[in-house]
Protein backbone atom coordinates (compact mmCIF):
# COMPACT_ATOMS: atom_id res chain seq x y z
CA UNK A 1 0.00 0.00 0.00
CA UNK A 2 1.41 3.35 -0.96
CA UNK A 3 1.37 6.48 1.15
CA UNK A 4 -1.39 8.19 -0.81
CA UNK A 5 -3.54 5.07 -0.74
CA UNK A 6 -3.07 4.79 3.00
CA UNK A 7 -4.09 8.40 3.48
CA UNK A 8 -7.05 8.05 1.19
CA UNK A 9 -8.19 4.96 3.01
CA UNK A 10 -8.05 6.94 6.21
CA UNK A 11 -5.39 4.80 7.86
CA UNK A 12 -3.75 6.28 10.90
CA UNK A 13 -0.77 7.72 9.08
CA UNK A 14 0.30 10.46 11.45
CA UNK A 15 0.95 13.61 9.46
CA UNK A 16 3.28 14.83 12.22
CA UNK A 17 5.76 12.32 10.88
CA UNK A 18 5.90 13.68 7.38
CA UNK A 19 5.26 17.42 7.44
CA UNK A 20 6.09 20.24 9.80
CA UNK A 21 3.79 21.48 12.57
CA UNK A 22 0.11 21.47 11.77
CA UNK A 23 -2.07 24.51 12.31
CA UNK A 24 -3.23 23.21 15.65
CA UNK A 25 0.17 22.52 17.25
CA UNK A 26 -1.44 21.38 20.49
CA UNK A 27 -3.28 18.51 18.94
CA UNK A 28 -0.28 17.33 16.96
CA UNK A 29 1.83 17.28 20.10
CA UNK A 30 -0.67 15.09 21.89
CA UNK A 31 -0.87 12.90 18.80
CA UNK A 32 2.89 12.61 18.82
CA UNK A 33 2.85 11.65 22.50
CA UNK A 34 0.22 9.02 21.77
CA UNK A 35 2.31 7.56 18.96
CA UNK A 36 5.39 7.52 21.20
CA UNK A 37 3.46 5.84 23.97
CA UNK A 38 2.04 3.26 21.62
CA UNK A 39 5.48 2.52 20.22
CA UNK A 40 6.95 2.25 23.69
CA UNK A 41 4.27 -0.29 24.52
CA UNK A 42 4.88 -2.16 21.26
CA UNK A 43 8.55 -2.46 22.26
CA UNK A 44 7.65 -3.94 25.64
CA UNK A 45 5.29 -6.43 24.02
CA UNK A 46 8.01 -7.50 21.58
CA UNK A 47 10.54 -8.17 24.31
CA UNK A 48 8.08 -9.74 26.73
CA UNK A 49 8.21 -13.46 25.75
CA UNK A 50 12.00 -13.64 25.87
CA UNK A 51 12.21 -11.56 29.04
CA UNK A 52 9.59 -13.63 30.85
CA UNK A 53 11.40 -16.84 29.94
CA UNK A 54 14.68 -15.50 31.30
CA UNK A 55 12.96 -14.40 34.51
CA UNK A 56 11.18 -17.75 34.86
CA UNK A 57 14.04 -20.03 33.80
CA UNK A 58 17.04 -18.20 35.33
CA UNK A 59 16.20 -15.67 38.04
CA UNK A 60 13.25 -17.41 39.66
CA UNK A 61 14.96 -20.82 40.02
CA UNK A 62 18.06 -19.06 41.32
CA UNK A 63 16.00 -17.57 44.17
CA UNK A 64 14.29 -20.92 44.72
CA UNK A 65 17.65 -22.66 44.94
CA UNK A 66 18.55 -20.38 47.83
CA UNK A 67 15.47 -21.44 49.78
CA UNK A 68 16.13 -25.10 48.98
CA UNK A 69 19.67 -24.64 50.27
CA UNK A 70 18.14 -23.88 53.70
CA UNK A 71 16.35 -27.23 53.78
CA UNK A 72 17.37 -30.81 54.51
CA UNK A 73 15.93 -34.19 53.66
CA UNK A 74 16.13 -36.88 51.01
CA UNK A 75 14.52 -36.59 47.60
CA UNK A 76 11.48 -34.34 47.53
CA UNK A 77 10.67 -34.65 51.25
CA UNK A 78 12.37 -31.45 52.37
CA UNK A 79 11.97 -29.54 55.62
CA UNK A 80 13.61 -26.41 56.99
CA UNK A 81 17.05 -27.13 58.37
CA UNK A 82 17.90 -26.52 62.00
CA UNK A 83 19.82 -24.24 62.15
CA UNK A 84 18.80 -22.74 58.81
CA UNK A 85 22.41 -22.47 57.62
CA UNK A 86 23.11 -26.11 58.44
CA UNK A 87 23.99 -27.00 54.83
CA UNK A 88 26.45 -24.13 54.65
CA UNK A 89 28.07 -25.27 57.90
CA UNK A 90 28.39 -28.73 56.47
CA UNK A 91 30.10 -27.27 53.39
CA UNK A 92 33.11 -26.17 55.41
CA UNK A 93 33.64 -29.64 56.85
CA UNK A 94 33.16 -31.51 53.58
CA UNK A 95 36.49 -32.90 52.36
CA UNK A 96 35.13 -33.74 48.90
CA UNK A 97 33.81 -30.19 48.48
CA UNK A 98 37.22 -28.82 49.42
CA UNK A 99 38.84 -31.21 46.97
CA UNK A 100 36.53 -30.24 44.10
CA UNK A 101 37.09 -26.58 44.95
CA UNK A 102 40.83 -27.14 44.78
CA UNK A 103 40.56 -29.05 41.48
CA UNK A 104 38.44 -26.32 39.91
CA UNK A 105 40.89 -23.63 40.98
CA UNK A 106 43.86 -25.59 39.66
CA UNK A 107 42.09 -25.77 36.28
CA UNK A 108 41.22 -22.10 36.45
CA UNK A 109 44.63 -20.76 37.45
CA UNK A 110 46.63 -22.83 34.96
CA UNK A 111 44.30 -23.17 32.01
CA UNK A 112 42.72 -19.73 31.64
CA UNK A 113 45.92 -17.64 31.47
CA UNK A 114 47.77 -20.15 29.27
CA UNK A 115 44.82 -20.39 26.90
CA UNK A 116 44.30 -16.64 26.61
CA UNK A 117 48.01 -16.01 25.97
CA UNK A 118 48.13 -18.76 23.32
CA UNK A 119 44.99 -17.36 21.70
CA UNK A 120 46.47 -13.86 21.64
CA UNK A 121 49.69 -15.07 20.03
CA UNK A 122 47.80 -17.11 17.43
CA UNK A 123 45.45 -14.24 16.62
CA UNK A 124 48.36 -11.86 16.24
CA UNK A 125 50.17 -14.27 13.90
CA UNK A 126 47.03 -14.79 11.82
CA UNK A 127 46.40 -11.07 11.60
CA UNK A 128 49.59 -10.66 9.56
CA UNK A 129 48.71 -9.41 6.06
CA UNK A 130 51.58 -11.27 4.41
CA UNK A 131 50.77 -14.64 5.94
CA UNK A 132 50.07 -17.45 3.49
CA UNK A 133 47.48 -20.21 3.99
CA UNK A 134 45.76 -17.91 6.49
CA UNK A 135 42.30 -19.42 5.96
CA UNK A 136 43.64 -22.94 6.32
CA UNK A 137 45.39 -22.16 9.61
CA UNK A 138 42.36 -20.35 10.99
CA UNK A 139 39.96 -23.16 10.10
CA UNK A 140 42.28 -25.81 11.56
CA UNK A 141 42.78 -24.00 14.87
CA UNK A 142 39.09 -23.12 15.13
CA UNK A 143 37.98 -26.67 14.23
CA UNK A 144 37.91 -28.11 17.80
CA UNK A 145 34.86 -25.87 18.41
CA UNK A 146 32.91 -28.04 15.99
CA UNK A 147 32.80 -31.04 18.34
CA UNK A 148 30.83 -31.30 21.54
CA UNK A 149 32.47 -31.37 24.96
CA UNK A 150 31.29 -34.94 25.46
CA UNK A 151 32.76 -36.07 22.12
CA UNK A 152 36.19 -34.57 22.58
CA UNK A 153 36.32 -35.78 26.19
CA UNK A 154 35.85 -39.34 24.98
CA UNK A 155 38.41 -38.93 22.19
CA UNK A 156 40.92 -37.67 24.76
CA UNK A 157 39.97 -40.51 27.10
CA UNK A 158 40.78 -42.97 24.32
CA UNK A 159 44.04 -41.26 23.34
CA UNK A 160 45.24 -41.08 26.96
CA UNK A 161 44.30 -44.67 27.86
CA UNK A 162 47.19 -46.53 29.48
CA UNK A 163 47.57 -48.76 26.42
CA UNK A 164 46.54 -45.93 24.11
CA UNK A 165 48.01 -43.61 21.52
CA UNK A 166 49.76 -41.01 23.70
CA UNK A 167 51.82 -43.61 25.54
CA UNK A 168 52.72 -45.33 22.27
CA UNK A 169 53.82 -42.05 20.71
CA UNK A 170 55.86 -40.93 23.72
CA UNK A 171 57.55 -44.34 23.96
CA UNK A 172 58.33 -44.28 20.29
CA UNK A 173 59.94 -40.87 20.77
CA UNK A 174 61.83 -42.24 23.81
CA UNK A 175 60.39 -39.54 26.05
CA UNK A 176 59.03 -42.16 28.45
CA UNK A 177 60.16 -45.78 28.90
CA UNK A 178 57.03 -47.41 30.27
CA UNK A 179 53.36 -46.51 29.81
CA UNK A 180 51.98 -43.83 32.11
CA UNK A 181 48.56 -44.32 33.70
CA UNK A 182 47.45 -40.79 32.74
CA UNK A 183 43.89 -41.00 33.97
CA UNK A 184 44.71 -43.07 37.05
CA UNK A 185 47.04 -40.61 38.81
CA UNK A 186 46.03 -37.34 40.44
CA UNK A 187 48.51 -34.99 38.79
CA UNK A 188 48.29 -36.43 35.29
CA UNK A 189 44.49 -36.75 35.35
CA UNK A 190 44.21 -33.05 36.13
CA UNK A 191 46.79 -32.34 33.45
CA UNK A 192 44.78 -34.22 30.81
CA UNK A 193 41.68 -32.17 31.68
CA UNK A 194 43.69 -28.96 31.34
CA UNK A 195 45.12 -30.12 28.00
CA UNK A 196 41.60 -30.96 26.83
CA UNK A 197 40.27 -27.55 27.81
CA UNK A 198 43.20 -25.84 26.07
CA UNK A 199 42.60 -27.89 22.94
CA UNK A 200 38.87 -27.19 22.84
CA UNK A 201 38.77 -23.48 23.70
CA UNK A 202 41.97 -21.79 22.46
CA UNK A 203 40.62 -21.41 18.91
CA UNK A 204 37.32 -20.12 20.26
CA UNK A 205 39.04 -17.28 22.11
CA UNK A 206 41.36 -16.67 19.18
CA UNK A 207 38.30 -15.83 17.04
CA UNK A 208 37.34 -13.09 19.51
CA UNK A 209 40.83 -11.59 19.34
CA UNK A 210 40.92 -11.83 15.54
CA UNK A 211 37.63 -9.94 15.31
CA UNK A 212 38.95 -7.30 17.69
CA UNK A 213 42.29 -7.00 15.85
CA UNK A 214 40.48 -6.37 12.58
CA UNK A 215 38.67 -3.45 14.17
CA UNK A 216 41.88 -1.90 15.49
CA UNK A 217 43.01 1.37 14.01
CA UNK A 218 46.05 0.37 11.88
CA UNK A 219 47.54 3.86 12.18
CA UNK A 220 48.41 3.19 15.85
CA UNK A 221 50.53 0.20 14.79
CA UNK A 222 52.13 2.23 11.96
CA UNK A 223 52.96 5.05 14.37
CA UNK A 224 54.68 2.60 16.73
CA UNK A 225 56.74 1.19 13.84
CA UNK A 226 57.79 4.67 12.72
CA UNK A 227 58.85 5.39 16.30
CA UNK A 228 61.18 2.40 16.01
CA UNK A 229 59.32 -0.12 18.15
CA UNK A 230 60.05 -3.79 17.35
CA UNK A 231 57.31 -6.36 16.81
CA UNK A 232 57.19 -7.43 20.43
CA UNK A 233 57.10 -3.87 21.76
CA UNK A 234 54.33 -2.97 19.33
CA UNK A 235 52.33 -6.02 20.37
CA UNK A 236 52.85 -5.47 24.09
CA UNK A 237 52.55 -1.67 24.26
CA UNK A 238 50.14 -0.82 21.45
CA UNK A 239 48.02 -3.86 20.55
CA UNK A 240 47.42 -5.38 23.99
CA UNK A 241 46.20 -2.16 25.69
CA UNK A 242 43.67 -1.66 22.91
CA UNK A 243 42.47 -5.26 23.27
CA UNK A 244 41.96 -4.88 27.01
CA UNK A 245 38.12 -4.86 26.94
CA UNK A 246 38.00 -8.04 24.85
CA UNK A 247 40.67 -9.74 27.00
CA UNK A 248 38.55 -8.86 30.02
CA UNK A 249 35.46 -10.32 28.38
CA UNK A 250 37.16 -13.58 27.37
CA UNK A 251 38.71 -13.80 30.85
CA UNK A 252 35.30 -13.53 32.49
CA UNK A 253 33.72 -16.00 30.05
CA UNK A 254 36.51 -18.55 30.56
CA UNK A 255 36.41 -18.20 34.35
CA UNK A 256 32.66 -18.63 34.29
CA UNK A 257 32.96 -21.72 32.07
CA UNK A 258 35.71 -23.32 34.14
CA UNK A 259 33.79 -22.86 37.41
CA UNK A 260 30.85 -24.66 35.78
CA UNK A 261 32.97 -27.46 34.29
CA UNK A 262 30.98 -30.68 34.06
CA UNK A 263 31.20 -32.61 30.75
CA UNK A 264 34.97 -33.15 30.88
CA UNK A 265 35.01 -34.16 34.53
CA UNK A 266 32.16 -36.61 33.94
CA UNK A 267 33.37 -38.13 30.68
CA UNK A 268 37.13 -37.71 30.45
CA UNK A 269 38.34 -38.69 33.92
CA UNK A 270 34.97 -39.60 35.48
CA UNK A 271 36.13 -37.53 38.46
CA UNK A 272 38.89 -39.99 39.28
CA UNK A 273 41.15 -41.11 40.70
CA UNK A 274 39.42 -40.85 44.11
CA UNK A 275 37.63 -37.59 43.16
CA UNK A 276 40.92 -35.76 42.60
CA UNK A 277 39.90 -34.45 39.17
CA UNK A 278 36.21 -33.95 39.97
CA UNK A 279 34.77 -30.49 39.28
CA UNK A 280 32.32 -28.71 41.58
CA UNK A 281 29.43 -29.01 39.11
CA UNK A 282 30.14 -32.76 38.83
CA UNK A 283 29.94 -33.08 42.63
CA UNK A 284 26.64 -31.13 42.69
CA UNK A 285 25.22 -33.47 40.05
CA UNK A 286 26.28 -36.52 42.07
CA UNK A 287 24.74 -35.09 45.23
CA UNK A 288 21.48 -34.09 43.58
CA UNK A 289 20.81 -36.84 41.06
CA UNK A 290 22.89 -39.87 42.03
CA UNK A 291 22.52 -42.41 44.83
CA UNK A 292 20.70 -40.53 47.65
CA UNK A 293 19.50 -37.22 46.20
CA UNK A 294 20.15 -34.36 48.60
CA UNK A 295 18.71 -31.26 46.96
CA UNK A 296 19.30 -29.02 49.98
CA UNK A 297 22.99 -29.66 50.32
CA UNK A 298 23.53 -29.64 46.54
CA UNK A 299 21.81 -26.24 46.34
CA UNK A 300 24.08 -24.85 49.07
CA UNK A 301 27.03 -26.01 46.97
CA UNK A 302 25.58 -24.40 43.85
CA UNK A 303 25.39 -21.12 45.75
CA UNK A 304 29.08 -21.45 46.50
CA UNK A 305 29.70 -21.51 42.71
CA UNK A 306 27.29 -18.62 42.19
CA UNK A 307 29.11 -16.48 44.74
CA UNK A 308 32.51 -17.35 43.26
CA UNK A 309 31.38 -16.50 39.72
CA UNK A 310 30.03 -13.14 40.87
CA UNK A 311 33.10 -12.41 42.99
CA UNK A 312 35.63 -13.33 40.29
CA UNK A 313 33.73 -11.36 37.61
CA UNK A 314 33.69 -8.27 39.84
CA UNK A 315 37.37 -8.77 40.64
CA UNK A 316 38.33 -9.10 36.96
CA UNK A 317 36.28 -6.05 36.03
CA UNK A 318 38.11 -4.06 38.69
CA UNK A 319 41.50 -5.22 37.36
CA UNK A 320 40.42 -4.75 33.75
CA UNK A 321 39.12 -1.25 34.32
CA UNK A 322 42.33 -0.03 35.92
CA UNK A 323 44.02 2.65 33.89
CA UNK A 324 47.77 2.97 33.87
Amino acid at each position, binding site marked *: MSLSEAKAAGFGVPSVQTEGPEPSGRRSRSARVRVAQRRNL*TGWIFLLPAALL*ILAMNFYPMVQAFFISLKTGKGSRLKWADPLWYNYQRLFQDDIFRLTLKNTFIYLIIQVPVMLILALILANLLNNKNLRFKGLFRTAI*FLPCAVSLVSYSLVFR*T*MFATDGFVNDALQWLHIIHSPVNWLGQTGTARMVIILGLLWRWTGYNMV*FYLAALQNLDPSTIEAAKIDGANAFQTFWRVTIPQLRPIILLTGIMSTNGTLQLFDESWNLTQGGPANTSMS*MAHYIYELAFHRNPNFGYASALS*YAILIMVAFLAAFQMKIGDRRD
Partner: protein
Amino acid sequence: MTDVTRTWRQVPGYVFLIVAAVISVFPLYFMVVSSTNTSQDVLASKMLPGTNLVQNMRDLLAQQNVGAAMWHSTLNAVTTTVIALIICSIAGYGFEIYHTRGKDRFMGFLLLAIMIPFAATMIPLFQAFASAGFVNSTFAVILPTVSTPFLILLFRQSARSFPHEILEAARIDGLKELSIFGRIFIPTMRSTYAAAAVITFMNAWNAFLWPKVILLDNKAQTMPMLVSNLTAGYVTNYGVLMLAVLLASLPTMIIFLVLQRSFAEGITGAIK
Protein backbone atom coordinates in the same frame (compact mmCIF):
# COMPACT_ATOMS: atom_id res chain seq x y z
CA MET B 1 64.47 -4.98 5.05
CA THR B 2 64.95 -7.31 2.11
CA ASP B 3 62.39 -9.88 1.11
CA VAL B 4 64.71 -12.69 2.08
CA THR B 5 65.20 -11.55 5.66
CA ARG B 6 61.52 -10.87 5.97
CA THR B 7 60.77 -14.40 4.87
CA TRP B 8 63.26 -15.80 7.36
CA ARG B 9 61.83 -13.77 10.21
CA GLN B 10 58.44 -15.33 9.54
CA VAL B 11 59.72 -18.88 10.01
CA PRO B 12 59.08 -19.13 13.80
CA GLY B 13 55.56 -17.84 13.25
CA TYR B 14 54.86 -20.45 10.57
CA VAL B 15 56.31 -23.21 12.76
CA PHE B 16 54.12 -22.14 15.66
CA LEU B 17 51.01 -22.03 13.46
CA ILE B 18 51.75 -25.39 11.86
CA VAL B 19 52.23 -27.06 15.26
CA ALA B 20 49.00 -25.46 16.56
CA ALA B 21 47.08 -26.52 13.44
CA VAL B 22 48.34 -30.13 13.60
CA ILE B 23 47.53 -30.44 17.31
CA SER B 24 44.07 -28.98 16.68
CA VAL B 25 43.23 -31.35 13.85
CA PHE B 26 44.92 -34.52 15.06
CA PRO B 27 42.36 -35.70 17.67
CA LEU B 28 39.64 -35.38 15.01
CA TYR B 29 41.72 -37.38 12.54
CA PHE B 30 42.25 -39.94 15.30
CA MET B 31 38.48 -40.09 15.84
CA VAL B 32 37.69 -40.60 12.14
CA VAL B 33 40.39 -43.22 11.56
CA SER B 34 39.64 -45.09 14.78
CA SER B 35 35.98 -45.44 13.87
CA THR B 36 37.08 -47.75 11.03
CA ASN B 37 39.37 -49.89 13.19
CA THR B 38 38.92 -52.63 15.77
CA SER B 39 39.36 -51.81 19.44
CA GLN B 40 42.74 -53.60 19.44
CA ASP B 41 43.92 -51.58 16.44
CA VAL B 42 42.85 -48.35 18.12
CA LEU B 43 44.89 -49.22 21.20
CA ALA B 44 47.79 -50.30 18.98
CA SER B 45 47.71 -46.75 17.58
CA LYS B 46 46.96 -47.75 14.02
CA MET B 47 46.82 -44.41 12.24
CA LEU B 48 45.45 -45.56 8.89
CA PRO B 49 41.84 -46.31 7.97
CA GLY B 50 40.86 -49.93 8.57
CA THR B 51 38.10 -52.20 7.39
CA ASN B 52 36.10 -52.57 10.58
CA LEU B 53 33.65 -49.70 10.03
CA VAL B 54 30.71 -51.92 9.15
CA GLN B 55 31.35 -54.25 12.08
CA ASN B 56 31.64 -51.27 14.45
CA MET B 57 28.33 -49.97 13.13
CA ARG B 58 26.68 -53.37 13.69
CA ASP B 59 28.04 -53.55 17.24
CA LEU B 60 26.92 -50.02 17.99
CA LEU B 61 23.40 -50.59 16.67
CA ALA B 62 23.17 -53.81 18.67
CA GLN B 63 23.94 -51.92 21.89
CA GLN B 64 22.17 -48.60 21.43
CA ASN B 65 19.25 -47.15 19.54
CA VAL B 66 21.28 -44.64 17.51
CA GLY B 67 18.37 -43.69 15.25
CA ALA B 68 16.21 -42.65 18.19
CA ALA B 69 19.02 -40.63 19.76
CA MET B 70 19.75 -38.91 16.45
CA TRP B 71 16.07 -38.09 16.10
CA HIS B 72 15.85 -36.67 19.64
CA SER B 73 18.97 -34.58 19.16
CA THR B 74 17.67 -33.26 15.84
CA LEU B 75 14.23 -32.52 17.23
CA ASN B 76 15.63 -30.74 20.29
CA ALA B 77 18.18 -28.73 18.34
CA VAL B 78 15.84 -27.68 15.50
CA THR B 79 12.97 -26.75 17.84
CA THR B 80 15.29 -24.81 20.13
CA THR B 81 16.80 -22.96 17.18
CA VAL B 82 13.48 -21.98 15.60
CA ILE B 83 11.87 -20.78 18.84
CA ALA B 84 15.03 -19.06 20.11
CA LEU B 85 15.47 -17.16 16.86
CA ILE B 86 11.88 -15.94 16.84
CA ILE B 87 11.57 -14.79 20.44
CA CYS B 88 15.11 -13.48 20.89
CA SER B 89 15.19 -11.57 17.60
CA ILE B 90 11.88 -9.84 18.25
CA ALA B 91 13.08 -9.03 21.77
CA GLY B 92 16.39 -7.61 20.53
CA TYR B 93 14.45 -5.60 17.95
CA GLY B 94 12.06 -4.38 20.64
CA PHE B 95 14.90 -3.33 22.93
CA GLU B 96 16.70 -1.37 20.21
CA ILE B 97 14.07 0.10 17.87
CA TYR B 98 11.79 1.27 20.68
CA HIS B 99 14.56 1.90 23.16
CA THR B 100 13.81 3.94 26.22
CA ARG B 101 15.84 4.34 29.37
CA GLY B 102 13.58 1.85 31.11
CA LYS B 103 14.23 -0.79 28.46
CA ASP B 104 17.99 -0.20 28.54
CA ARG B 105 18.01 -0.68 32.31
CA PHE B 106 15.88 -3.80 32.01
CA MET B 107 18.30 -5.23 29.41
CA GLY B 108 21.18 -4.56 31.81
CA PHE B 109 19.30 -6.54 34.43
CA LEU B 110 18.57 -9.45 32.07
CA LEU B 111 22.27 -9.60 31.16
CA LEU B 112 23.02 -10.59 34.76
CA ALA B 113 21.46 -13.96 33.89
CA ILE B 114 24.68 -14.77 31.98
CA MET B 115 26.41 -14.91 35.36
CA ILE B 116 23.97 -17.40 36.92
CA PRO B 117 25.67 -20.81 36.86
CA PHE B 118 23.45 -23.56 35.50
CA ALA B 119 24.25 -25.66 38.59
CA ALA B 120 22.39 -23.07 40.67
CA THR B 121 19.17 -23.39 38.70
CA MET B 122 19.02 -27.02 37.60
CA ILE B 123 17.62 -28.40 40.87
CA PRO B 124 14.57 -26.07 41.05
CA LEU B 125 14.08 -26.47 37.30
CA PHE B 126 14.12 -30.24 37.65
CA GLN B 127 11.63 -30.07 40.52
CA ALA B 128 9.32 -27.76 38.58
CA PHE B 129 9.31 -29.84 35.39
CA ALA B 130 9.08 -33.10 37.30
CA SER B 131 6.11 -32.01 39.42
CA ALA B 132 4.35 -30.75 36.27
CA GLY B 133 4.89 -34.15 34.63
CA PHE B 134 7.31 -33.04 31.92
CA VAL B 135 10.18 -35.43 32.66
CA ASN B 136 11.50 -37.02 29.41
CA SER B 137 9.75 -34.41 27.25
CA THR B 138 11.21 -32.25 24.49
CA PHE B 139 9.35 -29.34 26.05
CA ALA B 140 11.36 -29.62 29.26
CA VAL B 141 14.64 -30.00 27.40
CA ILE B 142 14.23 -26.86 25.32
CA LEU B 143 12.31 -24.40 27.53
CA PRO B 144 15.21 -23.38 29.84
CA THR B 145 17.54 -22.73 26.90
CA VAL B 146 15.44 -20.98 24.23
CA SER B 147 15.75 -17.48 25.63
CA THR B 148 19.29 -16.28 26.30
CA PRO B 149 20.54 -12.76 27.05
CA PHE B 150 23.35 -13.50 24.61
CA LEU B 151 21.03 -13.96 21.62
CA ILE B 152 18.91 -10.93 22.56
CA LEU B 153 22.10 -8.90 22.69
CA LEU B 154 23.17 -10.23 19.28
CA PHE B 155 19.89 -9.12 17.69
CA ARG B 156 19.83 -5.82 19.59
CA GLN B 157 23.26 -5.17 18.14
CA SER B 158 22.14 -5.94 14.59
CA ALA B 159 18.98 -3.82 15.00
CA ARG B 160 21.32 -0.91 15.74
CA SER B 161 22.49 -1.05 12.12
CA PHE B 162 18.92 -1.24 10.76
CA PRO B 163 18.54 2.00 8.75
CA HIS B 164 16.19 4.49 10.35
CA GLU B 165 15.02 5.74 6.95
CA ILE B 166 13.67 2.31 6.01
CA LEU B 167 11.77 2.16 9.27
CA GLU B 168 10.21 5.59 8.76
CA ALA B 169 9.41 4.90 5.12
CA ALA B 170 7.66 1.66 6.06
CA ARG B 171 5.63 3.45 8.72
CA ILE B 172 4.61 6.11 6.23
CA ASP B 173 3.56 3.32 3.88
CA GLY B 174 1.21 2.25 6.63
CA LEU B 175 2.93 -0.97 7.59
CA LYS B 176 2.09 -2.21 11.08
CA GLU B 177 5.03 -2.42 13.51
CA LEU B 178 4.93 -6.23 13.50
CA SER B 179 4.93 -6.32 9.69
CA ILE B 180 7.97 -4.04 9.59
CA PHE B 181 9.75 -6.57 11.77
CA GLY B 182 8.51 -9.58 9.82
CA ARG B 183 8.70 -8.29 6.25
CA ILE B 184 11.65 -5.92 6.35
CA PHE B 185 13.88 -6.57 9.38
CA ILE B 186 14.07 -10.37 9.08
CA PRO B 187 14.99 -10.43 5.34
CA THR B 188 17.50 -7.59 5.80
CA MET B 189 19.23 -9.30 8.72
CA ARG B 190 19.62 -12.71 7.07
CA SER B 191 23.29 -12.99 8.00
CA THR B 192 22.60 -12.28 11.67
CA TYR B 193 19.89 -14.94 11.65
CA ALA B 194 22.31 -17.40 10.04
CA ALA B 195 24.93 -16.67 12.70
CA ALA B 196 22.38 -17.00 15.51
CA ALA B 197 20.99 -20.21 14.02
CA VAL B 198 24.42 -21.85 13.73
CA ILE B 199 25.46 -21.03 17.29
CA THR B 200 22.09 -21.99 18.79
CA PHE B 201 21.85 -25.25 16.86
CA MET B 202 25.37 -26.29 17.85
CA ASN B 203 24.84 -25.45 21.52
CA ALA B 204 21.53 -27.30 21.58
CA TRP B 205 22.91 -30.33 19.75
CA ASN B 206 25.88 -30.53 22.13
CA ALA B 207 23.94 -29.89 25.36
CA PHE B 208 24.69 -32.54 27.95
CA LEU B 209 24.04 -31.65 31.60
CA TRP B 210 20.40 -30.50 31.41
CA PRO B 211 19.25 -33.29 29.04
CA LYS B 212 21.00 -35.75 31.34
CA VAL B 213 19.10 -34.33 34.33
CA ILE B 214 15.64 -34.17 32.76
CA LEU B 215 15.68 -37.14 30.36
CA LEU B 216 15.61 -39.99 32.85
CA ASP B 217 14.38 -42.60 30.40
CA ASN B 218 17.11 -43.98 28.14
CA LYS B 219 14.57 -44.12 25.33
CA ALA B 220 14.54 -40.31 25.25
CA GLN B 221 18.32 -39.89 25.29
CA THR B 222 20.24 -37.57 22.95
CA MET B 223 23.48 -38.35 21.05
CA PRO B 224 25.86 -36.85 23.65
CA MET B 225 24.10 -38.93 26.33
CA LEU B 226 24.35 -42.03 24.16
CA VAL B 227 28.10 -41.73 23.59
CA SER B 228 28.64 -40.94 27.25
CA ASN B 229 26.78 -44.13 28.22
CA LEU B 230 29.02 -46.25 25.99
CA THR B 231 31.85 -45.95 28.51
CA ALA B 232 29.66 -47.14 31.37
CA GLY B 233 30.44 -50.84 30.82
CA TYR B 234 33.47 -52.62 32.21
CA VAL B 235 35.20 -53.05 28.86
CA THR B 236 35.07 -50.25 26.31
CA ASN B 237 35.15 -51.10 22.62
CA TYR B 238 37.16 -48.13 21.39
CA GLY B 239 36.35 -48.60 17.70
CA VAL B 240 32.62 -48.54 18.47
CA LEU B 241 33.07 -45.60 20.83
CA MET B 242 34.94 -43.55 18.22
CA LEU B 243 32.28 -44.34 15.62
CA ALA B 244 29.54 -43.14 17.99
CA VAL B 245 31.53 -39.98 18.77
CA LEU B 246 31.96 -39.39 15.05
CA LEU B 247 28.21 -39.79 14.40
CA ALA B 248 27.45 -37.42 17.29
CA SER B 249 29.87 -34.83 15.88
CA LEU B 250 29.06 -35.14 12.19
CA PRO B 251 26.14 -32.67 12.01
CA THR B 252 27.97 -29.93 13.90
CA MET B 253 31.21 -30.54 11.98
CA ILE B 254 29.42 -30.22 8.65
CA ILE B 255 27.68 -27.03 9.77
CA PHE B 256 31.02 -25.70 11.01
CA LEU B 257 32.84 -26.41 7.76
CA VAL B 258 30.07 -24.96 5.58
CA LEU B 259 29.11 -21.97 7.73
CA GLN B 260 32.33 -21.19 9.57
CA ARG B 261 31.98 -17.46 8.94
CA SER B 262 28.47 -17.41 10.40
CA PHE B 263 29.66 -19.37 13.40
CA ALA B 264 32.51 -16.94 14.08
CA GLU B 265 30.09 -14.06 13.69
CA GLY B 266 27.64 -15.78 16.00
CA ILE B 267 30.04 -16.12 18.90
CA THR B 268 31.56 -12.66 18.59
CA GLY B 269 28.65 -10.66 17.12
CA ALA B 270 27.01 -9.66 20.37
CA ILE B 271 30.03 -7.76 21.65
CA LYS B 272 30.86 -5.46 18.76
